[in-house]
């Protein structure tokens, strides 16, 4: 079984990485996952498998990871702190590693209030920072979270985390990113960027502190299908900023879906050429996975590099 993550090899070799996202379904068939994975296979280096995204019960991220892996794509298993305590997390992540998964993305997770089980009891036993820290220690020092020794076969994950330059308090976002890097995060995927100016300010602060030299930052982008979708995100999704100009541009477009894709491609090109310190792009085509190959190709990111 191969030990090194392909995503890590690409990023460590200084190449611009492309990741995308596959949201597992609200049922127990893997057909759709496999369809999306096959379609994306040659266009992305790895794909996130969301973990009960927006607190809605979905097919397990680790099980979905197996299907994706079987289709020849490297999964990035998302692990939220909302649903599992530290015992379940370690158990599931060792299980994921045994199944061939090499990337993990640590995040706190949306509050259950937003999902389809708002009366459930959340866990939040540990937070995302602690998850990063202890996964790194698991790998580098062969210790369970408790400090007990892992006698053999410690999971050796490529550890990722998220950063949201659009949440508040803004100045603390860079501190928190640095704290995650100190804890052991090796790659960072950002929240969807719509407000480029704020993202550039964020990256300026990141570069000033040299954080971009210690971690691989992948800029998150999302193609939007309509002005209503943009407006919805603007008004209802916490921690996101959508400028009015973007809503207007989609509103005035003859073919809003085309325009949404065009905007996304422009953003990728802009980030790649102008925003120093960004090492890749993370395409979150939420419930629109089909459009990923086109975005990657037209952004000039195809073909993807081949690694060992």
């Amino acid at each position, binding site marked *: 079984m191969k030990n090194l993550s392909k995503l890590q090899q690409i990023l460590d070799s200084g190449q611009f990485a492309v990741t995308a996202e596959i949201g597992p379904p609200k049922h127990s068939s893997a057909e759709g996952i496999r369809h999306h994975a096959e379609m994306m296979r040659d266009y992305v280096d790895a794909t996130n498998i969301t973990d009960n995204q927006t607190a809605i019960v979905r097919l397990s991220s680790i099980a979905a990871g197996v299907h994706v892996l079987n289709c020849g794509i490297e999964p990035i298993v998302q692990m939220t702190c909302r649903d599992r305590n530290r015992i379940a997390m370690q158990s599931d992540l060792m299980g994921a590693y045994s199944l061939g998964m090499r990337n993990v993305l640590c995040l706190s997770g949306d*509050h259950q209030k937003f999902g389809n089980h708002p009366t459930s009891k*959340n866990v939040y*036993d540990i*937070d995302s920072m*602690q998850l990063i*820290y202890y996964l790194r220690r698991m790998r580098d020092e062969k210790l369970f979270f408790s400090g007990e020794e892992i006698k053999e076969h410690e999971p050796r994950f490529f550890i990722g985390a998220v*950063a949201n330059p659009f*949440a508040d308090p803004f100045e*603390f976002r860079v501190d928190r990113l640095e704290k995650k890097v100190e*804890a052991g995060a090796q790659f960072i995927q950002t929240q969807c960027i719509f407000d480029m100016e704020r993202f550039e300010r964020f990256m300026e602060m990141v570069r000033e502190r040299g954080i971009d030299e210690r971690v691989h930052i992948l800029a998150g982008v999302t193609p939007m299908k309509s002005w209503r979708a943009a407006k919805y995100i603007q008004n209802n999704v916490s921690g996101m900023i959508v400028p009015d100009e973007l809503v207007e541009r989609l509103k005035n477009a003859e073919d809003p879906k085309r325009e949404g894709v065009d905007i996304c491609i422009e953003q990728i090109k802009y980030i790649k050429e102008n925003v120093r310190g960004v090492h890749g792009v993370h395409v979150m085509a939420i419930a629109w996975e089909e459009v990923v190959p086109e975005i990657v190709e037209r952004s000039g990111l195809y073909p993807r590099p081949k690694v060992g």
Partner: protein
Amino acid sequence: MIVAQQKPVEDIAQMIADCKKVLFVGCAGCVTVCLAGGEKETEVLASAMRIKRNLENNPLEATTFTCTRQCDPEYIVPLDNLVKDVDAIVSLACGVGVQYLAERFKDKWVVPALDTKFIGGSVTHGNWEEKCGLCGDCILHRTGGICPIIRCSKSILNGPCGGSQYGKCEVSKDVDCAWQLIYDRMKALGKLDKLMEFQPPKDWSKSRDGGPRKAIREDVMID
């Protein structure tokens, strides 16, 4: 203090629907302060039940008593003489009081009239807020006197999460982001560097997850 709220009258009535004689027991402790189960509320509730049952042609004999505290054995001793011939006891204390009554009066049907909500304080008259998560291992010295265990919806110790915007929590625009408050306060105190320290996972064995907790003070024990 412990903040509690009275259950809907209909729900309380349901619990004692088949009783003829009921003792309503108030508590002069926390629930008096939060206007949920003190002497006044106990009298009002007993009256409400009497009226409701009269209207239903099923009269209820409702008596009342308010203990100094229901969470101390000596204060519930006076009930010994009052509970003898009642069919049920309705406690207007927090969950502790209900359990103390049930423990002492083993042959009686003891029911709660309140929902015990949280430990908090008053903001303005009639407005209480949760402030403490009863975690058993206080970290307020590290977070500028603001508790992230209970005031952050995700209990993040190294927060804030990505849902914090304009000082509010992702859960509701009416909920302050605890980490925004912590950040602002630490900044004002010139202690932002403290927030860069990695906070290790919580030892939840000191909290509810370790089973029921005990506190012992041998210096004040009599026997």
